């Protein structure tokens, strides 16, 4: 190999560095361009090592030397490979024969990192050091690590100054004879059981430390003497909460919240301390934290639901809006269910805020909020729910009708009655089902009036059946008489519609379960109408079995 060949390959490898820096930053590891770059780069090294055992570069500020020859030069500050290595103190790098493809790739990956970015907390030398390369060695100038120039000489001069007076070796020699004999401190050998204890210690040590930090910060919080220090410690606690949530350590935050709650519940608490403690509690329910929780829930990561519930128990009302926001963004049903349950727990702390979710543009969020309000069962939500009755999405309408039915109230009656005239049968049926929860005479009367109206017979069988099913909630004589009347009604026109009415009336009688109506039902058991026969038969069976 001639010297010029040598140089050519050393220069080529510098180009490998430059190309690698760009390519590895741009493409993921499985990209063909990335893989080709790695392969080509390794081949260059391989070529070099066919002839030489080591490849050593020397770095100067603006140039790189191979042997004594310049193989790279750049007087600019920007994109200067020499300066890139030089500024962190690297002065030489040597690649040894035996360099593996993995080592080379790791090396290229390190140099392709964007060191200008703040997030990188390590410099290039630290990253090399952490890799502990077997076949890449480097020489580093560490002078810049010292904060003072020639600190070493200063310290040495100080020592010399202290020892201006000569030592007194002769005295030491004489005194030595008067000394007791040297104590033999028994050095006890480490035994197997102790090693096992140590293994356990090391194993335990690998666990998350955030809970310990929280305990420490809490102790500091309650012990600081200057009021302005509360804010300082609370800020650290907030950072700790954020960190713990990021690591999925809900339990650590829960335990902290328990302690903070206990603190804020104290009567004698200092006002500033109370404010700062609450700041931390509020942060635990902030949008930042709740969004992170949502991501955690969606990721499929296993979550202890009991723990999650306990965490929610300790949050304040400020967590409601972030949870509503997250509810609309979650992708998995399981995660949504957990958040819905969380809002059921949190909602009572501020119903008004929760009802803001009814205005969410996403229909499913609105429906979920209605569901949550129904589960909470606070009548203060009714006025807000009534506004949702006119929602454009039928699924929302059905949910709100059901909820209104369960919550009840005078305004609800009017709204539900209006729903009975809705153009959508699903809405009308939902309204009828909702009426089942309202056992007022007004509703009963309204239903009977509607049934008696001429146009009732034109309703679908399904809707008719729902009317009578609802009516069955009133098991009184008035309803019984009404039903008997329907059953006995005769007409020459529209007989099939009439049979439908009788069938659903029979169904209703069956639901009421009165034995008195058995003769009437038995009579219709042999009706010409198949529908009526079947319904009468089923009703009789229901009453008989109930006896």
């Amino acid at each position: 190999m001639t010297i010029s060949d040598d140089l050519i390959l050393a220069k080529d490898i510098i180009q490998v560095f430059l190309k690698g820096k760009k390519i590895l930053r741009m493409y993921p590891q499985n990209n063909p361009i990335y893989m080709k770059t790695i392969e080509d780069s390794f081949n260059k090294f391989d070529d070099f090592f066919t002839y030489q055992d080591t490849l050593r570069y020397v770095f100067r500020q603006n140039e790189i030397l191979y042997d004594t020859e310049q193989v790279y030069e750049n007087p600019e500050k920007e994109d200067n490979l020499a300066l890139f290595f030089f500024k962190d103190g690297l002065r030489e790098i040597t690649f040894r024969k035996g360099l593996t493809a993995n080592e080379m790739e790791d090396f290229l990956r390190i140099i392709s990192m964007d060191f200008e970015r703040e997030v990188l907390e390590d410099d290039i030398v630290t990253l090399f050091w952490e890799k502990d390369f077997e076949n890449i060695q480097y020489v580093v100038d560490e002078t810049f690590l010292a904060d003072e120039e020639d600190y070493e000489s200063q310290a040495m001069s100080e020592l010399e100054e202290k020892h201006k007076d000569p030592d007194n070796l002769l005295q030491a020699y004489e005194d030595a004879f008067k000394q007791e004999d040297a104590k033999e401190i028994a050095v006890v050998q480490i035994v197997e059981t102790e090693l096992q204890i140590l293994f356990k210690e090391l194993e335990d040590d690998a666990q998350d430390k955030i809970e310990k930090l929280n305990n420490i910060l809490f102790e500091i919080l309650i012990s600081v003497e200057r009021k302005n220090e509360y804010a300082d410690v609370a800020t650290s606690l907030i950072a700790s909460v954020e960190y713990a949530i990021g690591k999925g350590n809900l339990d650590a935050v829960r335990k902290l919240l328990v302690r903070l709650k206990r603190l804020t519940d104290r009567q004698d608490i200092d006002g500033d301390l109370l404010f700062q403690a609450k700041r931390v509690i509020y942060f635990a329910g902030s949008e930042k934290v709740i969004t992170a929780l949502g991501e955690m829930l969606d990721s499929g990561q296993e979550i202890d639901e009991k723990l999650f519930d306990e965490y929610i128990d300790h949050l304040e009302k400020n967590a409601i809006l972030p949870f509503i926001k997250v509810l609309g963004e979650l992708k998995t049903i399981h995660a949504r269910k957990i958040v819905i349950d969380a809002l059921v727990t949190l909602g009572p702390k501020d119903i008004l805020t929760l009802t803001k979710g009814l205005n969410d543009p996403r229909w499913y969020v609105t429906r979920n909020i209605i569901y949550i309000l129904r589960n909470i069962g606070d009548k203060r939500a009714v006025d807000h729910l009534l506004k949702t009755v006119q929602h454009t999405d039928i699924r929302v309408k059905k949910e709100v009708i059901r909820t209104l039915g369960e919550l009840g109230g005078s305004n609800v009656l009017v709204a539900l009655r209006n729903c009975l005239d809705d153009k959508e049968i699903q809405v009308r049926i939902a309204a009828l089902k909702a009426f089942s929860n309202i056992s007022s005479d007004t509703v009963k009367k309204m239903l009977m009036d509607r049934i008696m109206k001429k146009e009732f017979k034109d309703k679908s069988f399904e809707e008719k059946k729902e009317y009578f099913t609802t009516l069955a909630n009133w098991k009184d004589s008035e309803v019984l008489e009404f039903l008997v009347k329907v059953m006995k009604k005769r007409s020459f026109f529209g007989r099939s519609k009439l049979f439908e009415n009788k069938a659903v009336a029979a169904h209703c009688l069956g639901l009421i379960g009165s034995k008195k109506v058995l003769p009437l039902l038995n009579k219709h058991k042999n009706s010409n109408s198949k529908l009526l026969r079947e319904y009468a038969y089923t009703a009789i069976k229901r009453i008989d079995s109930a006896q």
Partner: protein
Amino acid sequence: MPSKEELKIQKYAQDFVNQLSVVLRTSQIHDLNNVAVKSNIEKMMSHVSALLGMENIITLEVRGEFFYFNEYRMRYPLEYLLNFDFLMREFKKRELGSFIIVKNVTLQDMQTFIRAFIESPYATNPYERIEEKMKGIENIKIDRLKSIVEEDFLDVRKMVKKSYFNAVSFTKGVIHKIKSGEKVSLKKAKRVVESMVDHILEQEQLLLGMTAIKEYDEYTYHHSVNVSILCVALGQRLGLNRKMLTELGMVSLFHDIGKMEIPPEVLNKPASFTEEEWKVVRKHPSIGSRALLKLKKLDELSIRSAIVAFEHHMHYDFTGYPKITDPKKLDFYSRIVSLADQYDAMTSARVYSRVPMTPDKALSLMMERAGTQLDPLLFKFFINMIGVFPVGTLVMLNTKELGLVYEGNQIFVSRPRVMLITDNVGNRIEGRVIDLTEKDDKDQYSKSIVKTLDPNKYNINLAEYFL
């Protein structure tokens, strides 16, 4: 980073050395025909075959306190610690420096070596005895333990010294920067610690020697660096990996950062503290913890640093400070730092009654505290690391010469290397380093330590000898 193949070789090498130790240990008790011994030898031979299949030759060499396998220094896992220590001790006893196995080694060859090895320690010249017994064995070679040539260490000593002072200067800079609200470069901090970790992995005793000099003006900064060095050295004995050692080095370097808020007139007070001053001093763990949390975004390192800064004076039994309402077991690193901190503080001339203790006295006192203030198990490791006669101890030998302990011996802890500073009638002499494991013609140790003294009492400038 080692390739998969290299990692495999390293693992086989560790297993081989561990098994060699097991074989030699069991062979000292049972005959080579014993079933257990035979089975252990067979197991070892399987490691040998595997290694020879990959490496062609097996060279196990003792250099200083470490084994080198085919030129690479071995890092052993914690579970092999006892067997590695045993083997090192047995090799040194026999002055055996290298053990080389080449291809075609047979079971008979190995049995011959084991026999020679176990019979040799009672011989006057154990190495020669092994050599004689091994005559005619072509596939196993041995070599005598090489004594350490002082000149080889001069450059290394210079580098270690430079790293040490860089670290002190950096620590001083960090404290000043935090005080004045400037940004602190943690990148630099990592570099400082990595350099120390490297030196400890390669030249532990040299860096430990640097901690023996305690008379610098800027005690706080030197103390921080000394504690960091002692912690990393102890961490190494505990089997921590490089990353963990760096973490430990970092957290220990900053353990006393809270002292920056203690007024200098209190910190450097020549007399004992008043109750009021103690109150101020006792706040430094809490101040330090808070300061560290402000340095950077919360991550594992800052969490660990804050914990250690807070706990390093709490004591193993929580009798220290700060007092807290709900004490939980001290962090593993806090317990390590407590040991290093107490030892360095006690042997320094600034705190603890303002009178420095000799290292051996400090260790005696710490031994009394093991189980109460200090973690007893970690203390065992600590004392094994520091040695019975730590570096810097002024000693008188049975030959009536005075010397300074220059470098510990991990295996024979009471037989360190000593720099002679007087002859046997008390005349000053040019420092010559001797090894107390050296024996005379009658196979007796040539020199032994009989007395220890405080070098400070006689104005002996350790730096003159060590730096």
